[in-house]
């Protein structure tokens, strides 16, 4: 029996026996989507990866000190070993690697060309989406665009200049624009409007710190305008409740979201529930590890619908065990990701299945990108003020007219609107870095990033916080990955 010691795994495939049919191409791109959910994965007890982008903003605080990594994020004392930092590195590069597998292997499959192009377009979008996080978190990062094996030449890559990474992101998104993707996609897959919206956001970011390619403002404005002008079914929801209504996922305002379904993975924002208060069918079960910083809550204008209890972004009372008597919570909590269908509402028990998606780009952000970018490119225009007004109208706030704005005042108005409209969606931190400005909740004005005191911990932001440290273990395992970002040695 000469083959007695040969082995082949009956439960797993090898790469050379795969990538031959259209069905396999679909399976390959599905893996990239699956990986993208890393953002919602756990980061130790009572914590999730997304908290990396919330805790340092100062807009939230915690009711539990259980997770010391999370504590260190809140108090801006995180380091190169902090679990969240390591998880993000692992997460983005795994998405990239699976996207690289698709981009390398799918072109050779004999299949319908239209379907093939769409799959390649989705892979390019998701790779760009992942690199966009990497480059904003760490600056110069390894740029890998081919599948790797242990013998690959760049298995131990050094850091590529962030300009090169941005070029790759723009190249991928530009290619994805013409991949034949549908304008919107209710199934939760990448659509053409998602590609253009992300590209607008990338341009806006390139225009700011650290690249400061101010010419990109015009690109951002025109890309956002493409979405606004060709909106089709895309629009703002009328009410804030619809934004976190699980039955409205991937429609109207939701341009791109990470997909969640209880059958595979339920909504990952559970750490926003108050600490052991019975606001859901689970009874007293929340962790409260991301709750609003009270001054930030107070910084919303009087009458802002977004602060209305159980209608806007916050709730200060809820129904016992989801569907019972209304009770006072004593403080505001985040309602933005609260799934009423799953958790229950007055007299209606929850379904216990939290199928709510995690929004990545809402149309509201596209409007604000347009307003900001066009103001920077050309100064205030009616279109820019209109875009801002649409956001504020929904909040039932009045907006100054075009004539009342200077470029300066419109700029700050849009920034502030971003803080209030996009809070707790893992966007604010990148605004802080790109603008090097932070909303001062007490004055309502903007502080410089360096020196701003986060009220959640009374700690000041420093120059080094503009980038996160490279994970220490990764630097040890890859000697070419040097130097560490300044301030973290």
């Amino acid at each position, binding site marked *: 029996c000469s083959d007695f010691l040969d082995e082949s795994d009956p439960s797993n495939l090898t790469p050379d026996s795969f990538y031959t049919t259209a069905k396999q191409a679909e399976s390959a791109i599905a893996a990239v989507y699956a990986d993208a959910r890393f953002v919602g994965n756990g980061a130790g007890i009572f914590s999730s990866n997304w908290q990396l982008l919330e805790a340092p903003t100062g807009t939230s605080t915690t009711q539990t000190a259980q997770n010391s990594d999370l504590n260190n994020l809140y108090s801006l004392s995180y380091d190169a070993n902090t679990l969240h930092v390591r998880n993000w590195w692992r997460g983005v590069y795994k998405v990239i690697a699976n996207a690289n597998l698709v981009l390398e292997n799918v072109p050779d499959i004999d299949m319908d060309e239209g379907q093939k192009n769409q799959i390649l377009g989705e892979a390019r979008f998701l790779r760009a989406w992942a690199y966009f996080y990497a480059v904003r978190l760490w600056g110069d990062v390894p740029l890998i665009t081919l599948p790797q094996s242990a013998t690959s030449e760049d298995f131990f890559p050094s850091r590529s200049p962030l300009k090169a990474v941005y070029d790759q992101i723009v190249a991928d998104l530009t290619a994805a624009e013409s991949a034949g993707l549908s304008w919107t996609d209710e199934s939760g897959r990448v659509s053409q409007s998602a590609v253009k919206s992300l590209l607008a956001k990338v341009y806006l970011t390139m225009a700011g710190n650290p690249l400061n390619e101010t010419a990109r403002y015009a690109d951002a404005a025109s890309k956002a305008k493409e979405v606004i002008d060709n909106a089709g079914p895309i629009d703002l929801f009328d009410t804030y409740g619809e934004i976190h209504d699980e039955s409205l996922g991937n429609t109207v305002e939701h341009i791109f979201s990470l997909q969640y379904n209880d059958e595979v993975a339920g909504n990952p924002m559970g750490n926003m529930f108050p600490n052991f208060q019975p606001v859901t069918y689970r009874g007293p079960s929340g962790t409260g590890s991301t709750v609003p910083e009270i001054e930030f809550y107070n910084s919303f204008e009087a009458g802002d619908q977004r602060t209305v209890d159980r209608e806007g972004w916050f709730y200060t009372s809820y129904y016992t065990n989801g569907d019972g008597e209304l009770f006072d919570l004593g403080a505001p909590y985040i309602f933005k990701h609260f799934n009423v269908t799953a958790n229950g509402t007055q007299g209606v028990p929850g379904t216990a299945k939290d199928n709510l998606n995690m929004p990545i780009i809402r149309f509201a952000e596209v409007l604000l990108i347009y307003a900001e970018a066009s103001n920077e490119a050309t100064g205030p225009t009616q279109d820019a003020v209109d875009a801002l007004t649409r956001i504020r109208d929904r909040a039932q706030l009045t907006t100054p007219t075009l004539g009342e704005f200077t470029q300066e005042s419109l700029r700050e108005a849009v920034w502030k609107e971003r803080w209030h409209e996009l809070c707790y969606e893992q966007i604010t931190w990148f605004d802080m870095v790109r603008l090097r400005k932070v909303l001062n909740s007490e004055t309502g004005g903007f502080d410089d990033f360096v020196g701003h005191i986060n009220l*959640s911990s009374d700690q000041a932001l420093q120059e080094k916080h503009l980038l996160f440290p490279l*994970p220490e273990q990764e630097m040890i395992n890859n000697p070419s990955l040097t130097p560490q970002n300044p301030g973290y040695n």
Partner: protein
Amino acid sequence: SVSDASGALPGANVLVKGTTNGTQTDFDGNYTLDNVDSNATLVFSYIGYKTLEIPLNGRTVVNAQLEEDASELEEVVLIGYGSQRKSDLTGAVGQVDADQLQERPATSLNQALSGKIAGVQVNTNSGRPGGKSNIRVRGFSSINSSNNPLYVIDGVQLPQGNQANFSSAIDYLNPNDVVSIEVLKDASSTAIYGARGANGVILVTTKRGRAGQGRVTYDVEYSVNQFGPNRAKVLNAEQYAMIEQLSWENTQKFDPEGWAAGNYAQYEPRLKRANPNVAYLFDSDGKAIYDTDWSKEVVQHKLSQNHQLGFSGGNERTTYAVSLGIRDAQGLLKNTYLKRYSGRFSIDDQIKTWLKIGGSLSYNNQTENLADTNDQVPRRMVEDYPFYPGPLHTGGPLEGLYANNRDYPYAEGTRNSVNWLENNEYILNTQTTTGSFYTNLNLTKELEMRTVIGANVLTQENNEFRNSVLDNNAVARAQASNEKQTFWSIENYLTYNKEINENNSFTALLGVSWQQSNQFFVNADSRNFPTDYFKYNNLGAGSDNIAVQSFADREALNSYFGRLNYNLYGKYLFTVTGRADGSSKFGDNNKFSFFPSAAVAWRISDEDFLVDNTLISNLKLRTSYGVTGNSEIPPYSSLSLLSSNYAAIWNESRVGGTGLNRLANPDLKWEKTAQYDIGFELGLFDNRISMEADYYYRKTTDMLLDAPVPQSSGYATIRRNVGSMQNQGVELGLSTKNIVTADLSWNTTFNISMNRNKVLSLATPSDIFGVGGPGITNETSIIRVGEPVGAFWGLTRLGTWGTDEAAEAAKFVSYRNGLTILPGDIKYKDFNGDYIINDEDRSIIGNGYPTAWGTLTNYVSYKNLDFTLELQYSWGNDVMDMNLHSSEDRQALANSYTTVLDAWTPDNQDTMIAQVRDTRAGYVTNVDSHWVKDGSFVRGRNIMLGYTFGQNLIERMHLNKLRLYASAQNFFLLVDDELLGDPEVTPIRGGESNNVFSQGMKWHEYPKSTTFVLGLQVGL
């Protein structure tokens, strides 16, 4: 003819001294020898008997009666693929015989083995029936592959594997079927098992029949459990009320802004107690009416029983043995049990003078309900509220329903321990069928060929059910899985025994082996049933069919092995061993590897200058060196694989995805352990005092490691042979016969083992985290070069900040919810002086490995009475008590340990324990040095008193043996005052594989019991 005390002795050797002329006695003990000089001397020998020399002096008929040799030196010891007299051993082999195995009742073989052999560490880490034991022979040899020894039952190897479902294959063997156990420790003895020998080899011999009178035995045992010693104390209702009140009041200090904003008003105990659900529990002064000790609620005091029936007999040609067993072990915790039905049949037949055949077939059916597959029960029984009336509400709107902590306002949303015990099932139904068949062919008088065919089929159902009362949405969940492991082996070997002349003899062995193991697993998970009636018996009735999985794998091993034992002058002993192993699991470039060993022993006491020495009756020096391997990694580890277990969500449905999984490594090969051993055996005063001591040094190289790779590749690790680790140690066994008289005898055995583990190199300079720990905090353990594998990792707690240190404390960047550090908060050592407490301030703070461990056993017999006292000890092992995280560091969410009564107050500032406060006002909890306690202990393992009825009485009853005994196990524990609970622990939470390096890490284990046993042994 040749006989012994009980009659004819077939198969005894008769040799004309100084010649090769010899024969064996026939079935009636008769023999004939031709061509014998009338002045010659005949040498009669038989294994287990004293050799007898009788000069002929012209006689033609010589009858010899051989005396059984009580001396253990003449005992036959099993070695791999053969046996040897103990005195001829060149390697380090520990032995446990039937008498020792019977000293204390045991549910599993590992428990029976515990403490019996120096160098073998058995920790029973769970108190459930059947336990959950960790066994290590001479420390750790591996980081990523198994550290479990290889078990060989009657010559058939068991699959090594991991501990699926908290047990390994050996746990399903009925320990009552075992007559002896040999543990092969050094490379000389394990190298014959080559690639599977690196963690030591345990040879198990089961009962066989003997020629002569038929025997019937019946052993019965009844036992009851109660809580074992040193249980951690929790607050009673009055103490809890005091701590709860203080916690709330202190909130004003720890979060003054929140207090001023009224955030804590609702948490005032007075208001909480007024909640309609719980109001009935308090009198008009708010004082608790009830005071429940939950440890009394969770236990059952059920009678356990064990019945073992045996039949054996045979004639000169054929012998057989049958054993039947029923064991019903009731756990300390309600509804936990282990029931085992076992049967075993063996037969041996000398079918021709030159051919012996035989075999055995055994079947075990075991059913268990485990309560410690998660921490719910053991944790909840600590944290359940003492002011509850017990498991059920006795008043208020929830009357008759389970009284769960979650019914009390703002408590952690948990359910009580009894509720879990009554409504959560984790049933394991395991059936094992083990069979073996052998033929022994005597090709010539000196050459024997043995063929052994073995098979082992293990089928394990795992049925889980969680009643809807345990679910937040009243949804029941059920899961059923089935695993089937099929193993077979064929081994064929030749043994050549040659006595060249009086001074030169050798035994040569040459063999070949094939083994294969297949595994198939299927699992289905379903929820949301219309009724709780179905449990796991109708998964299709669930509305949500959550998951379906299956997998299959196969592994195969093909080996060639040989050994040469050479005996010169009966004093100089040499052994050379080699095995070539080929495994399917390794890379195409490295399927085969060779494992050699060599050993020398010198029986100094047989030298002329010592042979008549009255003091020294035995002295042997031996040394060995060899290489063994470890191949226990999952199959297919060398291949580049994709995973098809990705799940995307499109259109609100699961869509399977296929993506990257594992990096290929065609160069993957065995992990190798080179071991050097030097030992001596000493017997004094006719072996009244005997001693065996070994020093060993083991170095594992080419360690199989999931070595970290740059994660920029998308992969986290590659399975590689990198890194090395060493273990060195000393083991000593001492046995004394203190009193030997007709009526009174007193024997003492003592053993001590010391092992030092150190990681020598890793794949990269980076430390390895993510090992050990229950996953409730950040990292607890580290694998670092120069340190013992899996050392404890954390901050250093200096104490608490005093009132006079307020200014210094306030300089620290907050390590509690962003709030200012205050007097009464935990004070950590800030290693780099940056006023930030983060990873830079973590260091190695202990490890779970003892400096020394062992047992001391005394046996006393006086006339018909026998008495045994066995003490187990361990010294220098640390315990990391992670329970302090929830039961000491935080208050008012659940009940706490009484240690919080010593928390910081303005009047009690010299304490390690932070001032109590509502957790929402910012508390501090970190893995730190205060959680690490000295886990040294002395345990009263067994105390037993037996009475054997006198010959007169039992003969009248037509019996040949009747013994009654009573025993208490785990009857005392001596530990450091600071240690709460039992020191022998590993956490269940975090998964079995993650817990390989968690010895001594405490996270709510199934409590150990003190067990009282009454037993009767009948023989006829």
